[in-house]
């Protein structure tokens, strides 16, 4: 797959429609492309550029800044182990070393069967639940070496249907019903908002 599918084009148009300026939709659209293909392809980025009206170089410029966007194929499961200070104090580095042994790869690498990519990541906001990790951005809290091996074998044997493949982020999307929508506020729209004008407060 390369360019966005028709279904995804429709979703992309809906997302773009929620922002006063189309380029603001760039990051959500890149996630959509990554959800479709598992990583970002040049074709998808070019297509997104067409949809929001910027060059593919600008799309790449934005995409390459953010860690979650992968320009190369990665495993079906991205295993992100936190080693930042709160986790380090509670065994995060030891967990990472154990994970390297279990998976037979170093951070940044993917297993030969294409199932797992391992990463040594920064704080993921589960500091009181250290050591912690994420698989495709789903949390595992206070995980032991045994717990990690169990997780890997469960993923291998398809026992974790709650974790979708890499690229799928939120499985529930926002949809604004047309009849409830207030509408985008354009930066050029300099009118005083109704409720401020009605209150006669002049925007204090």
């Amino acid at each position, binding site marked *: 797959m390369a360019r966005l599918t028709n279904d995804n084009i429709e979703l992309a148009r809906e997302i773009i429609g929620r*922002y006063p300026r189309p380029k603001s939709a760039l990051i959500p659209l890149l996630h959509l492309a990554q959800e479709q293909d598992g990583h970002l392809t040049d074709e998808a980025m070019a297509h997104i550029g067409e949809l929001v009206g910027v060059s593919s170089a600008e799309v790449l410029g934005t995409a390459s800044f953010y860690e*979650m966007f992968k320009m190369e194929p990665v495993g079906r499961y991205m295993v992100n182990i936190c080693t930042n200070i709160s986790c380090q104090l509670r065994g995060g580095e030891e967990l990472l070393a154990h994970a390297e042994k279990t998976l037979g790869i170093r951070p940044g690498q993917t297993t030969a069967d294409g199932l797992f990519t391992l990463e040594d990541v*920064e*704080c993921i906001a589960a500091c009181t639940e250290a050591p912690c990790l994420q698989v495709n951005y*789903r949390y595992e809290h206070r995980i032991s070496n045994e717990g990690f091996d169990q997780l890997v074998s469960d993923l291998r044997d398809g026992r974790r249907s709650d974790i979708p493949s890499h690229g799928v982020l939120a499985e529930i999307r926002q949809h*604004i*019903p047309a009849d409830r929508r207030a509408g985008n506020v354009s930066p050029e729209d300099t009118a005083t908002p109704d*409720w401020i004008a009605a209150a006669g*407060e002049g925007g204090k």
Partner: protein
Amino acid sequence: MITDAPQIITSRFDKADSHTLAGYEATGGYQALRKALSMGPAAVADEVKTATLLGRGGAGFPAGVKWGLAPENVWPRYLVVNGDESEPGTYKDRLLMERDPHQLIEGVLLASYAVGCGQAFLYVRGEMALAQERIATALNDAYAAGYIGKNILGSDFSVDVVLTWGAGAYIVGEETALIESLEGNRGMPRLKPPFFPAAKGLYMQPTIVNNVETLSNLPWIVTNGGEAFAALGAETSRGTRMFAVSGHVKNPGVFEVEYGVTTFRDLIFAPQYAGGILGDRALKAFIPGGASAPWFFDEHLDLPLEKVTVDRAGSMLGSGAVIVMDETTDAVKACLRVVRFFARESCGKCTPCREGTTWLQNILQRIQDGYGRPTDLDLLMDVSDNISPGITWPPKQTTICPLGPSAVSPIASAMQRFRPEFEARIAQAEEARHSVPVNFTKASSHG
């Protein structure tokens, strides 16, 4: 002091359906919105000003004052919600988004109403899939129920709340970087001045950027009044606040406590909070407000969790992240880990930070690995001084944003208190370098 202050923002955390619209409505949800619509926008803003609600994102700027910084009669104004929680040690906004998304949304509506924002963007950290799902569901339900969108609850107040999300970059927690990201760009901070968001923010329009926890307080404040909120806490730190206590403690957790009166000792040692140091070992140091904050020690334990007091003592409460290190902690290793974080997350815009944080990491790494040089400690301070001249508190900076100076905090702290540990590591390295390797003498004798 441990008090029985009410749970203002975590009151629903123990309820299984706290994230649903039904669960929220059953516990007083969206009543503050109804009340606000009858009060008028200025009265709502006044309540928040009376409450003296300090921003809970890190800088601790009063929210009511921040709202007032938008230039008068300049429209449109936008509200941007900072849900990009990623300061090491910080774990509260994710909980608020996952467990009580409607409380946050009601806060967004109240702020939009008071400030006059016709569109609000709720920016959630990219890595938080569940928070994104919970907020998407909550927004969909709240739209359907008439709480968001056009003519809310039959009034002339209309606002769209748009869920948007990031893709992995700590720096986007900085408000101008977040705005860049929301405009579809690389998340690099803007120069302040002139780009103070309240004057020139999203699309160069007045923009209020508020943290998730800050906004989550608004429904309670509007319901109970700003005075009731201000009656809690101390002079310059009102209400309650969430603190995450992590590291070497028996019961790591997130606790909502009365702001300004509860002490670090209470938080770290009280059985209802973190319960003391793991294995009853001695305390070595603790970080009082996230990785950017200078470290505290035994003598700081009895300080209250109060903004001005902690600022004066040489650190900050930052994002409410208390990280505890016991006596077994390797100061060099801990310092290296925190510095490495900032080196990895530097956006690369300013040279002192981009180059400096990387050099700091490399020097510390070589000390840690046993290759340190006697000149390295002065070198660390010299590089630090180039990022944050004088290495003072509050820090000065040669950079656009505080990320670079943040990397200096752990070094200044560790060197001030644990310099002998660094020196010992370097002395060991020196000894190894000057000793004659065993194999060398063997090799020569076989000459």
